């Protein structure tokens, strides 16, 4: 088939069922999906449209002749004739190769999404920290993420959508609003700790720790036990009673100790894990910070599932 200079061989997104083998000339392939990616060139000997031939897949590129060119067209019928005359395992190998390519493509997409999360959180956290606002223009975030990580705007939008589903942020027309100013940086630092130290961050609380902290915050809120500087003080006796009532467990020094060691709870005197809990008259904690920590602990375990599930 002859294709004159400037003519299109196929258009991105249209379904095709034939393979082209370039016999002479030159073709240029471009993508609207990735406008900034380098164009791909097809010279004599190149093949175009393997997946269209094998499974009528949409064309991945728009391909235009750079000069007067000639292609050999292979239709699905020809392929079928050849494979029918061969042992069935040849067909199995072809199917295997196609499915393996799809898996690799899917894995690449997931990997790109996972990879884009830390820079997105970093950029968002830094922007809200420096601008003292809770929003960032969507276009600016997309641009910065592209500059830093090569993430395409559609991928950034997909990731933002996932984070919106997790109630970490809200996409409002042309800005992205952080649901809480501290949860985004907290999540970033927790992910960073896991990646760089290869261990669980101290920000990650066990279920028991989360339950104790929840009881503590409920008491602080219900009894208005928060001072003007945002520090809440809960008498140990009250905390023990409420834990027994609402969570059905007896609060001990051993249960509370991790929260003290992580700096979530503060005591007046040095905390002794072996001493009775009643020796500590009360516990202090920052109300907003503790709420953010709980929120981050709600989101964190859902992230992996949302990103790669």
């Amino acid at each position, binding site marked *: 088939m002859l294709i004159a200079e400037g003519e299109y061989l196929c258009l991105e997104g249209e379904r095709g069922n034939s393979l082209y083998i370039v016999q002479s000339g030159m073709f240029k392939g471009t993508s609207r999906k990735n406008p900034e990616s380098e164009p791909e060139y097809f010279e004599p000997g190149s093949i175009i449209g393997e997946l269209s031939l094998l499974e009528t897949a949409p064309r991945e590129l728009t391909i235009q002749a750079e000069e007067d060119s000639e292609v050999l067209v292979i239709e699905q019928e020809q392929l079928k004739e050849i494979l029918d005359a061969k042992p069935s395992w040849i067909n199995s190998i072809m199917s295997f190769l196609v499915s*393996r390519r799809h898996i690799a493509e899917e894995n*690449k997409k997931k990997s790109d999404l996972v990879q884009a999360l830390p820079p997105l959180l970093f950029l968002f956290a830094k922007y809200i920290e420096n601008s003292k606002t809770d929003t960032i223009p969507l276009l600016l975030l997309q641009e910065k993420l592209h*500059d830093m990580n090569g993430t395409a705007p559609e991928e950034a939008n997909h990731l933002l959508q996932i984070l919106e589903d997790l109630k970490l942020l809200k996409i409002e027309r042309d800005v992205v609003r952080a649901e809480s100013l501290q949860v985004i940086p907290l999540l970033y630092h927790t992910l960073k700790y896991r990646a760089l130290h290869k261990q669980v961050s101290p920000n990650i609380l066990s279920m028991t720790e989360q339950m104790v902290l929840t009881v503590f915050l409920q008491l602080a809120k219900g009894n208005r036990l928060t001072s003007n500087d945002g520090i809440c003080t809960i008498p140990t006796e009250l905390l023990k009673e409420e834990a027994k009532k609402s969570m059905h467990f007896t609060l001990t020094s051993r249960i509370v100790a991790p929260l003290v060691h992580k700096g979530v709870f503060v005591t007046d005197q040095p905390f002794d894990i072996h001493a009775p809990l009643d020796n500590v008259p009360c516990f202090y904690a920052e109300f907003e910070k503790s709420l953010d920590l709980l929120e981050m602990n709600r989101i964190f375990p859902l992230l992996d599932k949302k990103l790669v599930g």
Partner: protein
Amino acid sequence: MSTGDSHKQLIPPTQVSVKAGFVVYSPDDETRNIIILNKGELAAVDRSEIPARTIFKMQPGELVGVAALLEREPFKYTLEATQDSEITLISEDCMESELKTLPLWLLAVIKGLSAQTRKLKEATRKPRVQNTLKSLSEYISHLEPKKSYPMDELCREFRWQTKIPESQIQADLKALARRQFLEIRKGENGTEIYSDHPMLIQIYVDYQKASEKNKPWAPFQLTDTQKKALTLLAALQKDVQTDAPSWLKFFTDSGIAINVTEWIKMLSFGWFKVCDDSSFQVNKDKILYYQLALRYAANIRGVL
């Protein structure tokens, strides 16, 4: 249409019947085969773990070993029959003899699919950005001014974010240091990164973006009149908020002839913020941005 060499003798596959428990393939085996299960059941078991873990089970019609044979990718599991089974073994010679009978274009399709898969797998391990200097500049621009950061930690964090190799990060840090956007210096705890003006690095990112697109970059396109206006606005002590005619009068009174066209241009530079009552106020951040861009023009252009 050109086809492969069909005259060469075909080597037939081997049909084998195995009893339950028979090890069909072990990672120590030197011979590689594609294994097709015709009847029964096979399990791929990871024997490097204790206790051994079943990774997947094969049902009739399924096959393994294509990547091992075509691309030399090691198959790391032991393949065992969990029931009495019938299998077909396709050796390298058998496959080659069969593939040689295929038309060349079909061979090219097979190779193309393998190459695409390999490329996709490799791409997941590589950085996505092409301009690593721009990427690092974006990251560094968020550091706090006049604060020292341990270089090792910065490199590790940035590498985690972008997958850019450490050697490249260090080369890019040196490139930024050569432009005097930051200093790499010895501190108490090893090498440290220090920057007076991280904003300057953000300016450098914007310059690079404009250069990549072959677009003129506004700070380097200012006319003499605009530069004079910039200096005047930078020197303003008070937070003046007034309407456009008053601003034009202010410039004229200061000996700078600014007409409406120039005024619109200044608005497009972002030098003024529009207030609620449609009056205008100087945008100090943008003025500083343009000032820094002009002061460090040689550093930004890399012509030191």
